C-alpha cells in the first residue's frame, strides 16, 4: 500500500486505461497471455513460411549460372523431370554462351551407417572439375569427386541420416550404401534441408550414373549455362528461347527462383497453410482483445456514463478503451516475441530450416498486433458511443 502511494505520487495524472487494466490483474494476465500466444503463432507461421521459400530456393540461388535450362513440367524439389542433354549442347552453339554444365538430380536411398535405416536423400550429379556450387565447403572438396563411388555429404542434412558431419574426418571417411551401392563420403559441404529435401549428397556425373544404372547420361534434370562476360541475362534468355525448341524452359536465376516460389505458394497448399495460420493468429488475438475490452466496457458502463455526465467528451472515454488496447498490444507483444525468439532457435536446431527472426518481421508483427488491438478496440467502442449520460441518474 505504501509502495502504491509513492508510485501514484510520482505520476500526477495516471493513465486511466492502465488503471482499468491493472484493477483486474487476472483478466490482464489472461489477455496478455492470449495476445502473446497470438503473436507467437503469427511469428512462427510467418517464420516457417519464409523458411519454406528460403530453403526451397537454396539450389536455385547457390548454383553458379546465368541461365538455367529446365524441364517444362517440373519444379526443382519434387523429382525434376529429365530432358535431353542435346538442348545444352545446342545452347553451347549460341554466341552468348561461354560454357554449359549438366546437373543430374534424383532421390536415392541412403543407408544410415549407424542404424542401417534407409531414407530418401537427394542425390545430385555434377561435373567435379568445376566449382558449380556456391556453398560452404564445396570449393575445397569438389575435385575429390573424380574418384569412384565417392560423395560429398551435406552436413546440414536432417539428423536421421546419421551423425556424418560430426564423425567424419579426412583420415576416417564414412562409408555407407546409396541405392545399395557402397560409397564413401570424402568431404562435407553445407546446404541445408528444405520442405522437400531432407538431405543431399553431391557426386560426379559418372558416380551418379552408377547409383542410377537404368538412367541415361543423355537425360539431364538441370542445365547450367554461363554467359560470356557483359552479356545481359534477360536478353540472352530471350534469344535462347527463340533459338531452342520449346520443350525446355529457359530462365534467368530470378525467373527460376520465381517459378519455384510460385509453385510453393500457389500449386501446393503449404504456402497457403502458413499464411492461413498467421491470419488465424491475428483472428484469435483480435477476438481475445475484443472480449477483454468488451468486458471492460460492459462492466464499466456506469462509470463511463458518469464520466460523460460530468462533462467528459466522448473521445476522452473512447481514449480510455483505446489506451487499454494499445497497452495490451505492447504487453502481449513482448512475451510473444520472447517466446518466438526461443522457439525459432530450437525449431531451427531441430528442423535445420533457415528460421531466423528478422527485424523486418518483428516490426511487421508489432504493427499487425497494434492494428489487431486497435480494430478490436474500435469494435468495443460501439458500445461507448451509445452511452446515455442521463442513464446514470
Amino acid at each position: 500500500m505504501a509502495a502504491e502511494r509513492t508510485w501514484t505520487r510520482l505520476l500526477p495524472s495516471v493513465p486511466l486505461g492502465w488503471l482499468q487494466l491493472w484493477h483486474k490483474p487476472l483478466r490482464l494476465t489472461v489477455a496478455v497471455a492470449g495476445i502473446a500466444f497470438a503473436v507467437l503463432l503469427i511469428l512462427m507461421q510467418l517464420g516457417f513460411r519464409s523458411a519454406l521459400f528460403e530453403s526451397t530456393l537454396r539450389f536455385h540461388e547457390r548454383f553458379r549460372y546465368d541461365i538455367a535450362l529446365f524441364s517444362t513440367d517440373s519444379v526443382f524439389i519434387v523429382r525434376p523431370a529429365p530432358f535431353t542433354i542435346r538442348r545444352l549442347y545446342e545452347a553451347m552453339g549460341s554466341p552468348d554462351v561461354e560454357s554449359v554444365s549438366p546437373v543430374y538430380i534424383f532421390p536415392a536411398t541412403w543407408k544410415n551407417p549407424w542404424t542401417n535405416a534407409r531414407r530418401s536423400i537427394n542425390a545430385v550429379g555434377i561435373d567435379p572439375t568445376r566449382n558449380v556450387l556456391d556453398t560452404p565447403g564445396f570449393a575445397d572438396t569438389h575435385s575429390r569427386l573424380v574418384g569412384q563411388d565417392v560423395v560429398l555429404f551435406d552436413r546440414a542434412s536432417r539428423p536421421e541420416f546419421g551423425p556424418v558431419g560430426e564423425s567424419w574426418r579426412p583420415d576416417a571417411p564414412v562409408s555407407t550404401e546409396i541405392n545399395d551401392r557402397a560409397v564413401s563420403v570424402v568431404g562435407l559441404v553445407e546446404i541445408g534441408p528444405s520442405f522437400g529435401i531432407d538431405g543431399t549428397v553431391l557426386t560426379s556425373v559418372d558416380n551418379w550414373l552408377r547409383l542410377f544404372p537404368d538412367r541415361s547420361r543423355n537425360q539431364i534434370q538441370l542445365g547450367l549455362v554461363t554467359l560470356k562476360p557483359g552479356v545481359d541475362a534477360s536478353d540472352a534468355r530471350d534469344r535462347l528461347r527463340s533459338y531452342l525448341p520449346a520443350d525446355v524452359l529457359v530462365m534467368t536465376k530470378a525467373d527460376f527462383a520465381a517459378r519455384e516460389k510460385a509453385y510453393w505458394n500457389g500449386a501446393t497448399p503449404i504456402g497457403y497453410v502458413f499464411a492461413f495460420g498467421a491470419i488465424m493468429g491475428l483472428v484469435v488475438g483480435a477476438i481475445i482483445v475484443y472480449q477483454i475490452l468488451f468486458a471492460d466496457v460492459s462492466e464499466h458502463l456506469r462509470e463511463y456514463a458518469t464520466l460523460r455526465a460530468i462533462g467528459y467528451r466522448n473521445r476522452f472515454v473512447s481514449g480510455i478503451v483505446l489506451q487499454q488496447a494499445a497497452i495490451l498490444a505492447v504487453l502481449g507483444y513482448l512475451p510473444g516475441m520472447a517466446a518466438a525468439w526461443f522457439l525459432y532457435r530450437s525449431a531451427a536446431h531441430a528442423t535445420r530450416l533457415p528460421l531466423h527472426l528478422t527485424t523486418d518481421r518483428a516490426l511487421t508483427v508489432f504493427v499487425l498486433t497494434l492494428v489487431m488491438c486497435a480494430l478490436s478496440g474500435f469494435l468495443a467502442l460501439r458500445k461507448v458511443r451509445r452511452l446515455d449520460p442521463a442513464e446514470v441518474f
Partner: protein
Amino acid sequence: MPGSADAPVVVENLNHYYGKGPLRRQILHDVTTTIPAGEIVIVTGPSGSGKTTLLTLVGALRAPQAGRLRVLGHQLDGANRTALENVRRRIGFIFQSHNLLGALSASQNVQLGLRVTGRAARVELRRRAEAMLEAVGLAEHAHKRAEQLSGGQRQRVAIARALVGEPVMVLADEPTASLDKASGREVVDRMQSLARERGTTILLVTHDNRILDVADRILHLEDGRLATFTDAVIANTQQMMYLLAQNTDRQHVEQLVDAMDETAFRSTLQGADAAVAEIPRSDRDGERRSLPEHARAVAARLYAPGRRAA
C-alpha cells in the same frame, strides 16, 4: 420576477415526453420555475412523477424537447451536444449511487471532477483534490479505492468530486438514499455548508424526509406538474407527521390526526400556508425559514385548542 435574468435556472413551460408513436407518454407538463442563485431547492414527489427527468434536463444530460430552459446563462433548448457538454462541466453532479471509478483511488476520482473543468494545471489536480477530500473529512482516505471505503465515505468522495471544480450549481439525485440516518445527515450537512461558503445553487431530489430541513424551497412534482406549496404540504402530510413525531410525543400526534376530519385539516393547513406567506421572504443575507420552522408553525396551529374545536 426580479433577478430572474441571472438566475442559474429558468424553466418556462417545459414539457417532456418519453417513447415514440402510440407509446409516447408525457412526463413533464408545463413546468415553470426559477431557481435563484445560492438557494438550496429540494424536489420532492412520488415515484415516477418526473423528478429525475427534470433534474437531467436542468443538468444538460438530456436535450429539452418543448418549452424553454435556461441554465447558467445558456439556452439549452435547441442547443447542440457540445454546448450541452460545456454546461455540464460547470455543474457538479451527485448521483444516487456514488458512481466512483472502482480502479481509481478517492483522490484520483476527485481529480477527475477537477480535470474536466480544464481550469486546473496538472500539477494542481492532486493538491486540490486532497484539499477537497480533507474538507469532506476524508483526508486520511485519499489513497483508498472505493471498495475500501464505507457507503457514506464513498458518497462523500462523490460530493468532493462534484464540488472540487467549484461548480456554480450542484445537482443531486437522492444522494442519501443508500446511506443510514447518521451518514445521510453528515453528507447533507457537508453539502449545505460547502454550498453556503461558496454561494452554490443546489438542486436536490430526495424522498428522504430527514433532510428536508436544509431546503430554502421545496418543489413538489405530482404527475409531472409542479404543485403549489399548499398542495405540497398536503401531499407531504406524511412527511410532516414524521417530522412532528420526532419532536413531540408520537402517540399524541397520531390521536390528533385520527380525531381530525379532512376539511378541518385542510383549512388548518391553508391557515398555515397563509401564515407562511406572511413570513417575509428572506433575502440572501437574512435568516432563512426552513421547513422545520414551517412545520413548527403548522404544529402550533394544530395544537391550538381553539382551532381544533372549529
